[in-house]
Every structure is written in C-alpha cells, then in structure tokens.
C-alpha cells in the first residue's frame, strides 16, 4: 500500500497537471499488474459497491472517539468528508504503516471486499475500527476513502489515460476506449489495457462519447451574426434538435444487446422496450442517441423519464404510462467495424438507410434543413414548444470524437427561464466546499409567505461565495443541524431549463437544473417574483 499511499499524497499535494501525470506514470511503471488495474479503477473515479453504510460508520466513529453523536455530526458537516473526519479524529499519529509492504490489489481483495462476506456487523466493526486504531494518518485516510466512495484527488479518467498512454505508447483515445464499460480490475485487464493488441474486445464495451461545447457568451447569448462568424457556412453543419433525455449507447453484437448511459451504467434492464427493439438490428451495430419518454409523437416532460430511471425492473403499468424510445443520432459501428473516423456525412447516410428498417421504439433524429443561419435561428425559437433544449450543430466533415473536442459538436441552447428568488436556508458544501456555506434554498412569494422553489449550488464566483458565507454566518436566524435559516433579504436571479407541476414539493412546482445567475443586491426582497408568475411559465 505504501506506493499507492505515496501516489495519493503526491497527487493531493500539487495542482499541476504535468506533475500529476508524471506521478501516475511513475506509479504505473513500478506497480505489478493487479495493482495497476486497481489504481486505474480508483483513480478514474470508480468506487466499490457499498461495503459499510455511512450511518454505521458514523456510529462506530462516535463510539471510538468517545465524542457525543451530535458533535461527530457537527464535525463531519464542517469537514465535509467522512473518510477524512474519521482519520482526523482517530488516526492523528505518526507510526509505521503495518500495510506498507502489501500491494494495493492484495489489500483491496483480501481485506476490503471481504468485509461484505462477514456475517455480523460486529465482525465488520472489529476489522474497520482496527484500521482506525493502528494505521498512520495517511494510510487511515486512504483506506477510509477506498471504503466509502470515490477517491477525488483531482485526476480525471482522461488524465489517467494520458499517463497510461505514456506508459504504453498507445494513443490516448485507444486507452479511453478500453477503459469504457465494465471490466474487472485484475492483472489480465491491466496487461490487455497496455498491450499493442488487446486481443478479443469485450463484447459489451461502449465507445467513449463525443461531447458538445456550448455556443454562448457569459452573460447572454450570441447574435446570429456572431454565430455565423464563429461557425462559417451553414451548409457545413448538420443541425438537429437537442433532446432533454438520457444519452444512451445501444450495442447489438453477437445477438446480445447492451444499452449504456452516459455515466457508463448498463441500463438495458430498465428499458426493456428498447432492448427488444434492438433485436431487429444487424449484429455489430452501435447507435448513439437519446432515451426519451415519448407519447403521441412528442417527448413527455423529463419527470416522466425520471419515473423510469429509478426502476430496475419496470412493471406493466409503468411501461404503459411512461413509454420510452431511443432517438438515434449517430452510428458508431457497422458490421462490427468501428466507423468513428468516417466523416459525419457518411455515418449519417448509413444511419438513414439503417433507420429505414427501425422498429417503432427506435427513432431517427431528424436533420433540420436550413440554407441560412437566420432560418435555423427561427426554428430554434420553437424549442420550448417542442420540449427540446435548443439545437445541436455537428460539422458534416467531423469524425466522432473522444470526449469534448471543441469545434466538432456545438450545443446552441435556448435562453433559460429566470426568476428572482429570496434565499431562505444555507448549508455547508462537501469536499472543497467544506466549512463554507454553498448550498442554498430559494423561495418566491405566495401572498405573504415565502415558499421554497429550488436549491442551487452553482453560479457564484469564489469571491461572491466568500462574501455570502460571511453574510450567512452573521445573519443566521436558526440552526437545524448543519442547516441555517437566514434573514430573508438576499435576492438572487436563478436560471432554470424547464418547469413542471410536482406533488412532491410544497410549492407544487419543480424546476429543472436551477442555478444562480446573479446576486441581485439592488433588489429588495419584496421585489422577488411570485409563485403565480412561475406558474404562468408552466407548459
């Protein structure tokens, strides 16, 4: 564990990307295969399925530290990270690491994963609190991290791939592709990952998604002339609606079907009607598209799709009430051959001919015809009516990129709705926002009352966050655990994408993707918006 603990420390102690890559390269070059595989697993943000519940860990922490539970809770709320809170409270010591000579894989497979096999909580407790009592600070912190969730040490999957590309001499996109989907972190995987030829590819493996960059300027949006200037001839661009669903990759290989989400989760079982439809596809076909709840030739609100997301095995009623489709917009594999390097125009032609045989749950995403930018802009005005987020613009000559490559795909979203709302509650954030009030609840007027309508976490710059944090501390009315109610006087302009009725919220409405646009210090709370003005925006 010593090598991995040192890698973690090095990554944590620098903000330089080059230094991080260098540290990972050094680790990968020295570590044995199984350790390499587990390191890739954790560094790329993957986490172990839950081993011990967080509330149980907190209880053990209170018992081990001999502190009252409320104080443990308050401390945790301030630190914002359970793994770190435990290490700070219990392992504040410099001692030799008893696990120093053990490999990462040996520890994870031998001591961590086997926690699940222990029959009784007290056996789990004994092992876990044993680590807390004996490990030095760094090792205790790291073991807790591995046990409780993602590593979060400022490296992304792309950065890990950069290091692996350096170690193997392979292009980074190849590494990124091999890291997609499901794999077992073991020596064989590590060997295949770094090999020139990785042998028979994993049947279910998806391709890395091509991501779009926003066309916008903060604040406000670009004029048509500016868009035209930035993108050039409209004829070079394929325009489509930008759907508000779940990005999905549908794979049909060797008579098997896999549907992957953008977050690389297998969601085949959640959407059996799409899986069924995929049986009509020829073997060796991979489609990129959007899962949408769809009825009577139009998308249903996102809340309908949410009913489906949480159900691993949807029942007949759910299937009937919230039918879904896959709106297909790209073709990545034809006859088992990766066609991502072909220009979009060519991929599109093949997609269209394939779509001629699509069963009814697979739809072809239509291409919007326009000979002038102004004509596209006009169609874009219909977005809200059509329940889409705006337009997608894809260069006709573009290959299907890995990740967000500027210039290949653009999203030209419509301006969001906005509302002026009053801050009611604040709560400290987690991780790098620990001990800083960054999670806010906002309300609008319903007669004489302020009713909460949204929580928002983002949109302020660091300076504003600091200023607001100080204000919150001085203007607290009441404390409810980590939450503070504040004087209802600060007004903020919130932006959101869509609004729908909701029975779960007191206000009766739910807004989608709320975020802070501006701190409107010039507005008095009485000038904030009303619930009625929000209801007027309901579709």
């Amino acid at each position, binding site marked *: 564990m010593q090598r991995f603990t040192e890698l973690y420390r090095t990554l944590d102690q620098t*903000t*330089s990307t080059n230094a991080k890559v260098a540290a990972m390269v050094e680790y990968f070059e020295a570590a044995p295969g199984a350790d390499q595989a587990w390191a890739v697993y954790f560094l790329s943000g993957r986490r172990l399925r839950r081993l011990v519940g967080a509330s149980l860990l907190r209880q053990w922490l209170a018992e081990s530290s001999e502190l009252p539970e409320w*104080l443990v809770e308050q401390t945790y709320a301030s630190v914002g990270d359970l793994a770190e809170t435990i290490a700070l409270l219990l392992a504040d010591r410099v001692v030799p690491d008893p696990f120093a000579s053990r490999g990462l894989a040996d520890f994870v497979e031998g001591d961590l994963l086997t926690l699940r096999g222990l029959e009784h909580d007290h056996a789990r407790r004994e092992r876990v609190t044993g680590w807390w009592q004996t490990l030095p600070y760094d090792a205790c912190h790291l073991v807790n991290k591995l046990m409780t969730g993602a590593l979060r040490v400022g490296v992304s999957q792309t950065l890990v791939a950069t290091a692996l590309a350096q170690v193997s001499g392979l292009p980074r996109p190849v590494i990124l592709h091999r890291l997609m989907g499901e794999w077992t972190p073991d020596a064989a995987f590590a060997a295949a990952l770094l090999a020139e030829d990785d042998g028979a590819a994993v049947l279910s493996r998806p391709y890395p998604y091509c991501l779009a960059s926003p066309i916008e300027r903060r604040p406000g949006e670009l004029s048509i002339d500016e868009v035209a200037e930035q993108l050039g001839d409209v004829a070079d661009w394929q325009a489509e609606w930008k759907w508000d669903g779940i990005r999905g990759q549908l794979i049909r290989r060797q008579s098997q079907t896999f549907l992957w989400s953008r977050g690389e989760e297998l969601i085949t079982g959640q959407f059996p009607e799409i899986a069924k439809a995929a049986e009509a596809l020829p073997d060796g076909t991979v489609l990129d598209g959007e899962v949408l709840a769809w009825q009577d030739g139009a998308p249903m609100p996102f809340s309908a799709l949410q009913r489906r997301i949480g159900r691993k095995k949807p029942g007949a009623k759910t299937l009937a009430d919230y039918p879904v489709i896959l709106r297909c917009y790209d073709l990545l594999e034809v006859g088992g051959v990766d066609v991502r390097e072909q220009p979009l125009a060519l991929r599109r032609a093949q997609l269209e001919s394939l779509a001629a045989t699509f069963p009814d749950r697979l739809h072809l995403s239509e291409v919007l015809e326009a000979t002038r930018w102004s004509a596209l802009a006009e169609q874009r005005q219909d977005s809200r009516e059509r329940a889409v987020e705006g337009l997608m613009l894809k260069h006709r000559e573009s290959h299907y990129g890995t990740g967000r490559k500027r210039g290949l795909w653009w999203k030209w979203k419509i301006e969001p709705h906005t509302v002026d709302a009053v801050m009611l509650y604040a709560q400290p954030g987690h991780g*790098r926002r*620990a001990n800083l009030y960054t999670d806010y609840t906002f309300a609008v007027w319903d007669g004489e009352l302020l009713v909460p309508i949204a929580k928002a976490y983002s949109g302020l710059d660091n300076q504003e966050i600091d200023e607001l944090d100080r204000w919150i501390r001085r203007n607290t009315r009441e*404390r409810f655990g980590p939450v503070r109610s504040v004087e209802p006087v600060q007004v903020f302009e919130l932006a959101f994408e869509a609004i729908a009725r909701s029975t779960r919220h007191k206000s009766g409405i739910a807004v989608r993707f709320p975020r802070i646009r501006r701190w409107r210090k010039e507005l008095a709370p009485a000038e904030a918006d009303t619930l009625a003005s929000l209801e007027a925006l309901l579709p």
Partner: protein
Amino acid sequence: MRPSDLALITHAHADHARRGATRYIAARDSVPILRQRLGEDQHIDAVDYGEPIPLGDTTVSFHSAGHVLGSAQIRVARDGEVWVASGDFKRDDDPTCAPFEVVPCDVFITEATFALPVYRWPSASEVAREILDWWQANQRAGRPSVLFCYAFGKAQRVLAELAPLTQQAVYVHGAVQTITELYRAAGVSMLETLPVDGRERRDYAGELVIAPPGAAGSRWMRRFKGAQTGFCSGWMRVRGNRRRRGYDRGFVLSDHADWPSLLATIEDTGASRVLTTHGHSDTLVRLLRERGVDAAELDIGPLEGDEDVADAAVH
C-alpha cells in the same frame, strides 16, 4: 463596534484594535505594532504583564496570551470577583512571543475559532521541518516557493521556527517586512529577510517567498514563474479548505488554541462561567453545558479575526 473613550487592547490584529478611541492601554510589546497600525499620534499607554491598573472601582491587568508578540488576556477584578477575557490565545510554543499565562478567574471569556475536535495542532517545529522539505524540493525542481501567511504574527513565527534549520534568506512582501522589522527590534531572532523589489527583475527560482494571503492571484504574484504555493493556517488541517483555494500545500500552523487547548484552558482557569466568541462558539457552549459548565455565547456583533474565515484578507 462603537468608538469609546478608553480601549483596552488584547493585541494589534485589525479586528481587535480599531481607531477612534481617545486613549488606549496595551501590553508593552504590542505598542510599536499598534502605533504602526493605528498611527503614531495615538495616545497609547504601555503596561507590563501583571501590572495592576486601577480603573474606576475595578483593577485591570494584562497577562500574556501567547497569540502574537505583545498579545494579552485582560483581567478585571471587582469586589473579589474576577473576569478574564482571553482575546485570541494559544498554548503552543512560540519563539516570537511570551507563553500563555493561566489566570484563575470566575468568568472566562474565551475565543472558540477552532472549537471542533478535528482541530489539533502538530508541533510547530515539525511543521517548520515540512516547510523546509517542501522549499528544498521546489529548489531542486528550480521553482520558487510562495508561502502565504498572515503578515503579522504567522509570518514572523515561520521565520523564527525556520531559523534553527537553515541559514538561507527569505524574500518577503512589503506588508510582511514592516512587521518583521518591529519583531527584530523587539529582539526576536528570525531568518534574514529580503524585500521583493518591484523594480528589480530577478529570478526567484529556488527562493522562499512569504506573502500575505491577499496577494494570492494578484499581479504581484506574476514575477514568481512556476511557483508552488503553500498556506500556513489552522484551517489547513481540513483538506477541502486547501483544495478550494487551489494551494498546492497546506501547513497546519495556527496562533489560536486548538480543541484540546481550549478545553484544558477552560479547566485550568477554574472559571465557573464561560462565555464564548468567534468561530464555533455554539459547539463549545453545547459541549460545556453537557459537562455541567455554565456556558453561553457572547454576542459581540460581527467580528472577523485573522483566522475566522479560512481566507481572511491581509491583516
């Protein structure tokens, strides 16, 4: 806070010493710094630690708080009842100021900036060793090391703690230099300091530079090409506090009492009543009450100390 005729000053940090009083009383060692901050023309009476001062029907005395040079607790006695206001204090060793003195009292007004059990300080000499290791590693990589410290107190403590470990001179920001000279005049032994000269074009590769936190991200920083940055503060005990500001390194060094010191000090004073200010006041009060101590938060209005918020401006 309203201006008053007479102000008793615990120490010269900006949140504890403001302009506007007709007359000030302060511990002798803090007077030069106080003058530098409040102006040369102020009426300031210097007193020694422990020297009794009759004020109305009370007797007032100043006692070392161990926070920074010249910092004091203030003891007020009347009719056999004793109150002590701690001001900011710490119990840890500090070569730049007199150590904290335990003053028995009936009512103890304590700061609570770091009143959470995760705040426990490593020894300052250990931290100085870490700083030196970091500086030397950056030196080998040909990079400047920019260490952010509060200009008054922390910067001098770092310079003093480093003194036994190296002979190398340290570059300092103007705000740090001014106070450092006052410390030297008071006989505090520290590493040699050199000013960062605005006009001179020089390469700071391998040098250690001490600057106030407010200089982070400013134009002034541009001269330190490829610098690694560090921050010295009790808040650096928690990783999120460091990561959100993007410092490469955090060094846990505070001039405030940590959690064990707060609890020990309250017990040491023998106070039957405890009033808390700053930081996690509410937490400390709740814990003390659970332990049967008569405790309450003292509302003294909005105050911000040198470490009240993790990224306080330059003091």
